[in-house]
């Protein structure tokens, strides 16, 4: 409280019941949540993230996680939470294929928020809008423990397709187990890389315009690459 800690805002979006609240609880408190009720409105939580951990430039930032309830009845009023977001975590349920398809709709809702009134919640999947997207995006698949083992490979390969279209990174985990986001696991590394990207975009880049410029900035800075030598996709730890 002596040193003011700067903050960034990350939205956690997805269909109703995919596990956003459990995920946010796991990220911010470091332990799994016992009971869960439907989120009315928005649950917020914070995580203190060390930007560029281990380097002399290390600085603590406060990442605000805004977990917006996904029920259809409240869909008119979601947009009140979307303004000035700096990053996006899209959550889908690995046991439910349709929740993944709906992620496009969520992404469109956030991106089109400023583009005028929507007609009944139908968004056109506009490739151009998505490719011009400046917000860093992370896709997380939950309830991995509920998939029967013979389906595991097929389901996990499916989950990478949405992430590929948004050009985002992805994680598959089970929100009820602490070990999936324990320090040092691949998932934790990906998550902290995502937070680094968000912070960097917010505080360390001056010129957001120009597609080439934004493409360049999307790649993680070379500093963090030394902390994740196993840079390639590993789905399970």
């Amino acid at each position: 409280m002596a040193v003011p800690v700067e903050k960034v805002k990350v939205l956690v979006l997805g269909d109703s019941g995919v596990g956003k609240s459990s995920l946010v609880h796991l990220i911010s408190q470091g332990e799994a949540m016992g009971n869960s009720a439907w989120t009315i409105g928005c649950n917020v939580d914070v995580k203190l993230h060390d930007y560029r951990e281990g380097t002399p430039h290390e600085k603590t930032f406060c990442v605000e996680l805004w977990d917006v309830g996904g029920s259809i009845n409240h869909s008119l009023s979601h947009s009140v939470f979307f303004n000035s977001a700096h990053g996006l975590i899209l959550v889908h349920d690995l046991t439910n294929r349709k929740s993944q398809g709906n992620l496009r709709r969520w992404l469109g809702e956030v991106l089109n928020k400023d583009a005028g009134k929507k007609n009944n919640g139908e968004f056109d999947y506009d490739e151009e809008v998505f490719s011009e997207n400046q917000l860093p995006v992370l896709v997380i698949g939950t309830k991995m423990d509920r998939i029967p083992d013979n389906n595991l490979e097929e389901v996990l390969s499916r989950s990478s397709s949405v992430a590929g279209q948004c050009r985002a990174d992805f994680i598959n985990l089970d929100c009820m187990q602490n070990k999936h986001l324990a320090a040092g696991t691949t998932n934790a590394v990906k998550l902290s890389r995502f937070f680094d990207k968000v912070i960097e975009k917010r505080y360390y880049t001056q010129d957001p315009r120009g597609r080439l410029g934004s493409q360049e900035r999307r790649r993680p800075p070379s500093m963090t690459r030394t902390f994740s030598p196993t840079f390639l996709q590993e789905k399970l730890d």
Partner: protein
Amino acid sequence: MSFFVDSCIMFTTQAFFFGFGWLFFMRQLFKDYEIHHRVVQLTFAVTFALSCTMFELIIFEIVGFLNSSSRYFHWKLDLYAMLFSLIFLLPFYIAYFIVSNLRFVQSFQRRRLIVWLTVGVWLTFMYFFWKLGDPFPILSAKHGIFSIEQGISRVGVIGVTLMALLSGFGAVNCPYTYMEYFLRHVTDTDIQSHERRLLQNMEIILTKKKRIALAKRETRQAGPGTQRQGIWGMLKNVTTSLPAGENVRQLQQDVEALEELSRQLFLEVVDLHEQRERIAYSKTLKGKYFNIMGYFFSLYCMWKIFISTVNIVFDRVGKTDPITRGIEIVVVYLGFQFDVKFWSQHISFLLVGILIVTSIRGLLITMTKFFYAIASSKSSNIIVLLFAEIMGMYFISSVLLMRMNMPEEYRLIITEVLGDLQFNFYHRWFDVIFLVSALSSIGFLYLAHKQAPEKHMMQSMY
């Protein structure tokens, strides 16, 4: 040979209804969920197809299509299939899915246990279902256990209750939603000020949570360091960490209260958004049309409440149906002469057709709305099966009640197949439940309407 041809026609139409139910399930109900158990979709589509067949047979009866004996046969077949599905199949699957969703059963992971528990639950259901017949004067003692009458009578009681509840609520809610008179006035500035308050509340919550996180981090970082300092260190630890510890607890309590407040604020914002949508809608052509319809519906609603009260108080039993009565009035009092038989057939066909279509459509729409509101990924199967059960009971009882609306000669088939049911009892029961439901809906909506503008006005005073 004609029986064979008739059966082919029946089965073709049934396949068509089945396809419609299948598609409806896939496109509308399970729009957001992956279908893991095909059997659920199958059962739903089968129940829908059987219900539609019942209505179809009534229409055929009126129009005189198909052979009379084949109609009778198909009626019996359809009723037996409906009863089997409503009493055996659906409850069994519902019990199965409920049992397999229970936490303590999931830890066992044994199929056998689940099946036995399901059978147990189903037997309990059968017991209560049987006992349902006791307090009602619906049967005479001469029928056997497995006859259609036993099953239909009990299903009819449940179905008529549901119908009356939905009817009563719908009759009151319909004018309330359609009519402009009830719209509360909402401006853009109202919405903006509410949203601003909501976001301010969020900011406060975030600030407090940040303080909690920082405090926790400090105690974590300070913790391992002081362990080596012995007693003096421990004393120092106690005195310095005590205010921080209390601080965290106090902050957490504050945060909980603020989160509750933010939920309330959000619900108000949702309400305001909906009101604004309604106001915008009422300015369109469709909205104006519905506004006028709302006035008609309110008149209809008041007449229905009045007539139900009269029926109950005076113990009136309607003898003639509205169609024959209407024709009587026209012929006798107004002096028009026309072919009674021809017109009564066509008018009853029209009336019954409209009733059937509106009740099917109304039920499907209501079901979809409820499903979106209630279902989650765990409970979607159970809820859809419950809806299939409700749908089956609803349609059977609407057949029972529809008998009242048809001229004498067309009631034959229903009376023949369903035997000796006390139809008058069902009408009386419907009136009672309708009255109760309509009056309590009026009370409920009145309270809800009263509360909102006051809250609204209080906010605008800030």
